[in-house]
């Protein structure tokens, strides 16, 4: 017993500098990532006059004035963002589950090619597609329509979702599916009654990631919508006035826009970690 304690002491000491080093590094990286966000939130509570000083002021009288200002006129943008995000995410799941099933549990012929095709669509820079997309949208009369964003966000998120859901489905024990087959479950029953309940944490994390991507998307929205389907990120841009001070105003609007994502992430944190690490548990 004593012998062990004696040997443990110095080793712990030896490891200490390394541990401290890593801790410092981890904190430094974390703070570096967090400071802009913190700055945004703090600035949102400043009056416009105090927002753009150098060095930045840390002592000021917090005000909600900029929030009040930012909220006015946000309504339609918020609605469009919610519609595009929720609509596309539901579509992604509806399409992604059968697609992932056909690429994992009962793989179709040439499933590798299918899988590669899905991910290859993400390799093209979206800028390259914006011209054709604009023309197509123009001729289908979908320009500046919320349906266009729902369709495009679905297409944007589907490849990643298929890959994720597929990897979750591969984790479902083979024997369970065989037991279901022996019990007489058809394809639909196999998916709905056996697979989906097991991979539900994975589905939640997939949905969450789709929500975040769709919510934050700006490029397609700014190029293909004007007013009828303009989303929250566009509101942020449009809230920048042509002249005068605007930093506090912008920060307030950005803070409001970030809140839903943070709340959703916070609530689903556990399921997100569980879902994303599903492959690791086994």
């Amino acid at each position, binding site marked *: 017993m004593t012998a062990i304690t004696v040997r443990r002491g110095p080793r712990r000491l030896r490891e200490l500098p390394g541990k401290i080093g890593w801790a410092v590094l981890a904190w430094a990286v974390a703070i570096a990532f967090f400071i802009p966000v913190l700055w945004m939130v703090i600035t949102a509570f400043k009056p416009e006059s105090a927002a753009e000083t150098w060095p930045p002021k840390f002592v000021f009288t917090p005000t909600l004035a900029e929030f009040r200002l930012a909220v006015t006129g946000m309504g339609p943008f918020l609605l469009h963002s919610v519609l595009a995000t929720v609509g596309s995410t539901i579509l992604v799941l509806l399409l992604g589950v059968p697609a992932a099933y056909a690429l994992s549990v009962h793989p179709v012929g040439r499933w590798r090619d299918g899988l590669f095709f899905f991910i290859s669509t993400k390799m093209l820079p979206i800028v390259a597609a914006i011209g054709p997309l604009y023309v197509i949208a123009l001729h289908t009369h979908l320009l500046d329509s919320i349906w266009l964003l729902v369709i495009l966000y679905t297409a944007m998120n589907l490849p990643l979702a298929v890959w994720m859901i597929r990897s979750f489905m591969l984790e479902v*024990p083979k024997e369970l599916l*065989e037991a279901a*087959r*022996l*019990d007489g479950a058809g394809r639909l*029953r196999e998916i709905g009654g056996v697979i989906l309940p097991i991979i539900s944490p994975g589905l939640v994390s997939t949905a969450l990631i789709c929500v975040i991507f769709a919510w934050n998307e700006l490029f397609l929205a700014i190029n293909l919508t004007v007013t009828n389907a303009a989303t929250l990120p566009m509101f942020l841009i449009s809230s920048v006035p042509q002249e005068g001070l605007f930093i506090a105003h912008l920060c307030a609007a950005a803070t409001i826009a970030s809140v839903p994502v943070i709340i959703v992430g916070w609530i689903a944190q556990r399921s997100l970690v569980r879902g994303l690490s599903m492959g690791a548990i086994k």
Partner: protein
Amino acid sequence: MASVSYVSASRVYGKDTPPALDSLDLDISDGEFMVLVGPSGSGKTTALRMLAGLEPLDGGRVEIGGRDVSDVPPKDRDIAMVFQNYALYPQKTVADNMAFALKMQKVPKADRDRRVMEAARLLDLDEGLLSRKPRQLSGGQRQRVAMGRAIVREPKVFLMDEPLSNLDAKLRVQTRSQIAELQRRLQITTVYVTHDQVEAMTMGHRVAVLSQGQLQQCATPRELYDNPVNQFVAGFIGSPAMNLRTAPLADGGARLANRVLPLPAAVRTAARDANLSELVIGMRPEHLHLTGGQPGQGPDGSGELTGEVILVEELGADALLHVRLPEGGAPIVTRTEGRKPPAPGREVTLRIQPEEIFAFHPGTGARLAG
């Protein structure tokens, strides 16, 4: 209730690999408890999965109750399977797990509940467990639920794929006898896969021994033990395993440890007819007896071996002696009375009756008639 037949059933996974199951012919009669046993890769699980319909056939056919079911989907074969890891649906309650197949068959709810209750009673599953989820159960309880799920279907054939291998040793022995007893009561044809020869011997009416995709022998446990057809079966059945040694032929027997072990005349004739200069002899540990007498051929014509005890394994009722022969090689294991086994280092003499010595062809492994 039905018989099961494999007719030249084959399964080949890859072009360059030997068949996982090579033309299996096996008839299992109605109500029989058939155990498929063999080491991993022997094809026993493949054979079972073929019967279940989870594995296609590359040749031959499988019949249940005289009907060719080779192309019938699993759910229409009227079978129920117990998986090694039980494969219980984690999101369903125990009762729903057991009733799922009946639900798929559109059996009315009242009827389902009754059958689930009956099965639970049969398996001593507490009623309170029925509303729980599988993860809230112990390993033994899960095993019984898996059995229950098979029983409620009242199938023609039970298929069991190593259902006891996830239980601890004590529970395994207990459950072993429960399953055998249950099968006797229900009289449902059962095909049971295991790699454990003790399970095979204790449970099966008949045991089919497989190795490398080929059926070696199918017989009653007693017959397998007394009359193994080849070296593989002889070495696989029996615990501890039979002592197998290659020995040159000598006048009147085989030469082992500077001594001639007498062999029955029939064996000697068979060896001579096959032009053998040496053969493989097999001696079961329980057939080798410690003797206090002087080495040499025993008075009753039995053979004797002398060697040094290098290890004693106490089992309580008896003990296993590992005896090293002067010529080296793997030690000979013998079973002896547990009370006063000789200490390691002692020189001992073992005696065996000629008719209890097995002899095998050194090339083919086939038993030389004796």
